[in-house]
């Protein structure tokens, strides 16, 4: 593709491929999201990213009964339902009002290009009543992805434990670097944090006696996650490689752990957690406070709740680098 500054667009029959010098992305119509995020030949995704709504119950959540009140968000987090017929695609100025598959795509070639591709997936939450979440990827010719997620508020739903996007990576990261706040922070526990650049070795799980939500980093500007191995059997390199994420308009919140909320939720001791083998990145648009008044009834202070009846929107940028 050296002869053009545009990205290569591959109109598949179940996917849309986008490629450039050092990146290749595959959006799956069936799986409902970004199936492959390949940078410099290294795959970054194990499964398609999905909206995330659950955090592993904290002791304070349990004490106040928040996990019971908001239990349906656990189902919504565990099982993702993408409304495939609502997937929306715009390639440069061309809007596809339904997915471009054969025979409609038979007129395309292997030389299709674009400057900008925007694809939006719509998810229906497994709550009663249901509401929707959209996730939009805007890919530029250099491979930069502007990711945004939108939660549509619904007044009949219980408060959310978290709202974000969960990326699961095929192998364990060796660590991450970020520019943001020191330590583990939450909206109601970040006054003591210092802004700076920090390196975290490995993917430490904070060893609370009962595994629970941990490792959140509020108000982050830059994040770089580093891995050394892939699951590609033909990849014999052990050279470190990184995924870089930066803020779009606003700083973002994230946690980077070897476990999903469900895995943390099901263990009563740290050593019961499975062997760490993947990297779970949660990009959180809204984070509920942890509370602290007591652990047997007091709720998190109201300003640190995530009310279900209000829309939530957040965004960030994935930057391919050479």
């Amino acid at each position, binding site marked *: 593709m050296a002869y053009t500054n545009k990205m290569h667009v591959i109109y598949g029959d179940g996917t849309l491929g986008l490629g450039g010098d050092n990146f290749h992305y595959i959006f799956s119509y069936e799986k409902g999201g970004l199936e492959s995020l390949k940078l410099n030949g290294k795959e970054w995704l194990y499964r398609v990213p999905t909206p995330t709504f659950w955090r592993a119950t904290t*002791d304070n959540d349990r*004490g106040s009964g928040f996990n019971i009140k908001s239990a349906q968000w656990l189902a919504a987090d565990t099982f993702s339902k993408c409304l495939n017929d609502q997937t929306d695609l715009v390639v440069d100025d061309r809007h596809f009002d339904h997915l471009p598959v054969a025979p409609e795509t038979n007129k395309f070639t292997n030389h299709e290009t674009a400057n900008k591709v925007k694809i939006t997936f719509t998810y229906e939450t497994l709550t009663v009543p249901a509401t929707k979440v959209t996730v939009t990827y805007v890919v530029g010719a250099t491979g930069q992805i502007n990711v945004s997620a939108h939660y549509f508020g619904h007044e009949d739903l219980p408060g959310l434990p978290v709202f974000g996007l969960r990326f699961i990576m095929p192998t364990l990261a060796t660590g991450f670097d970020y520019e943001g706040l020191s330590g583990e922070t939450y909206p109601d526990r970040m006054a*003591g944090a210092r802004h700076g650049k920090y390196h975290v070795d490995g993917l430490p799980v904070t060893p609370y*006696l009962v595994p629970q939500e*941990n490792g959140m980093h509020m108000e982050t500007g830059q994040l770089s996650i580093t891995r050394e191995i892939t699951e590609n059997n033909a990849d014999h390199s052990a050279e470190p490689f990184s995924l870089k994420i930066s803020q779009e308009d606003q700083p973002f919140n994230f946690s980077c752990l070897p476990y999903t909320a469900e895995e943390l939720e099901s263990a009563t001791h740290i*050593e019961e957690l499975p062997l760490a083998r993947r990297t779970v990145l949660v990009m959180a648009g809204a984070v509920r406070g*942890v509370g602290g008044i*007591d652990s047997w009834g007091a709720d998190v202070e109201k300003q640190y709740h995530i009310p279900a009846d209000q829309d939530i929107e957040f965004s960030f940028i994935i930057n391919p680098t050479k």
Partner: protein
Amino acid sequence: MEAEIKWLDNPEIFRVNQLPAHSDHHFYRNYVEWQQHKSSFEQSLDGQWQFKFAQTPQERVKDFYKVDFDASNFGHIKVPSEIELSDYTQNNYINTLMPWEGKIFRRPAYALSQDDPEEGSFSEGKDNTVGLYLKHFDLNDELRGKQIRVRFEGVERSMYLWLNGHFIGYAEDSFTPSEFDLTPYIQDEDNVIAVEVFKHSTASWIEDQDMFRFSGIFRSVELLAQPVTHLEDFTLKPRVADNYRDGELAIDLAFVGEQAGNVHLVVKDHDGKTLLDETKPVTEKVTVEPHEFKDVHLWDNHDPYLYQLLIEVKDAKGNLLELVPYQFGFRRIEISPEHVVLLNGKRLIINGVNRHEWDDHRGRSVTMKDMLSDIHTFKENNINAVRTCHYPDQIPWYYLCDQNGIYMMAENNLESHATWQKMGAVEPSYNVPGSVPQWREVVVDRARSNYEFFKNHTAILFWSLGNESFAGDNLVAMQQFYKEHDDSRLVHYEGVCHTHDYSDQIPSLNKENYLPQGETHDYRDELSDVESWMYLPPKQVEEYLKNNPDKPFMECEYMHDMGNSVGGMGSYIKLLDKYPQYFGGFIWDFIDQALQVKDPISGQMVMRYGGDFDDRHSDYEFSGDGLMFADRTPKPAMQEVRYYYGLHK
């Protein structure tokens, strides 16, 4: 006198032949010993003891204390240590309910009826495990020919003591030193000391602290020899004048042994300048009248300035018999007419933590290393105060707090929440100590011991009657003890809030949640100098502070740091800026109580909590509420504490 197992059932028998509590000073033969921190008057009995465990009182070997007893089938245990942590009996963590919950029906003696002594409740208790300890020893040369006492610094929960086959005495009050005179039966060589330790007695009702339930000789044991004339006790009375600039010092001393020779007292400042120098003949009681100190260097958290007192006891010829060094500071705590707590004339703000003694391998048998580490953590994170929850700590901890300017709330060994709190409801139908006459002396004795041992520690600003023990005439008697003996500190007690109607002061509180059903006597004006609550949300703290507070307000426990917590601390801290009557509080708590064990599945060292030992009923991970993990690494929340506590240093 012979030992009687029935004492376990009787709340009126809690000390037999124990020496009276007295100040916790060290005494040395001379200056060299002091410099080397090694007194030749002292002989440690720590180390390996012979040990036999019994599941019940009935199964115990009853004549093990006799000199001709064949102990060849005894095993060994380390002193100090917890019996449970040597795997003789099950670990159990339980919070409010009694450890026999769901296993044995019990009521405290005399609580429901004056005719109900509950005989056999513990002496025949199927859950009352027994540790039998034996130690053979020779006296060190320096101790021979002298009066000898033994000091047990901490034994859970009730102990009987024999020496060379003779019954010596009995003690309860697990967290307070117990001393016994051994002189009548001590030999230079081949002594055998025998200790029978019961896990339960009536004391269990008032030692229902939220913690792992252990038993055994868990603090050090030592022999103490006294010279022919010995300073048994003294009371320092440093005062700060109304101008907060000058001070005065008075001292009362009490001697035992020969009433001869002189006592020479010197006070020096850091520069070695002598500020007091007096010599008085030794009599049973010696008083040093108030001595003026001009421009005194005050003691506080930022500048824990201590003066050095040296007391030399000399015989008639002028030979030094013993040297008692003690450091003390000048500080003044009071409540202003505006109900503001003042230290040295300035507003006091408590940036505190509750601290259980805990070590993830040793349980409550903590070491000096643990203590030094905790002090270091306090200093690093702007923690300026500690509540000794809910019992007196090891003696060195008080010295460390003096030296490091850590304000202390020195709490009695008292907690009886099972007797009045039932699944959160206030239900005091069989509450002890309450106002039950037979439970009065035992708790007053605990107040007395706490005072007498620790009265000379500058760091103690508050005496605390105990924790979560409701209220009653017996707590009033404890309070009166402190008021009669000490006008240099405040008295604190939280549980009294369950007897007062706060409809006017905190209107949004629901009475049903803090007051018992039916009538209760209002003890609010009889038990505490300060208004103390636990876990009252910031909004209700503010309600109290807005409604013409008639007492300064504090939270003796707040910011429950269980798991991932300490969110919203700023809502409390900002009240400090708005209301001078608010003087802060003590975070619950400092360190997770969890035990590090080897996981048989993974082979790794892992943390275990309540219920992990098949122990039922349990409160599971509820003891994991520290700012520190049990291995003394800080939780992520510590940076928040350091920040907020740094705002009002």
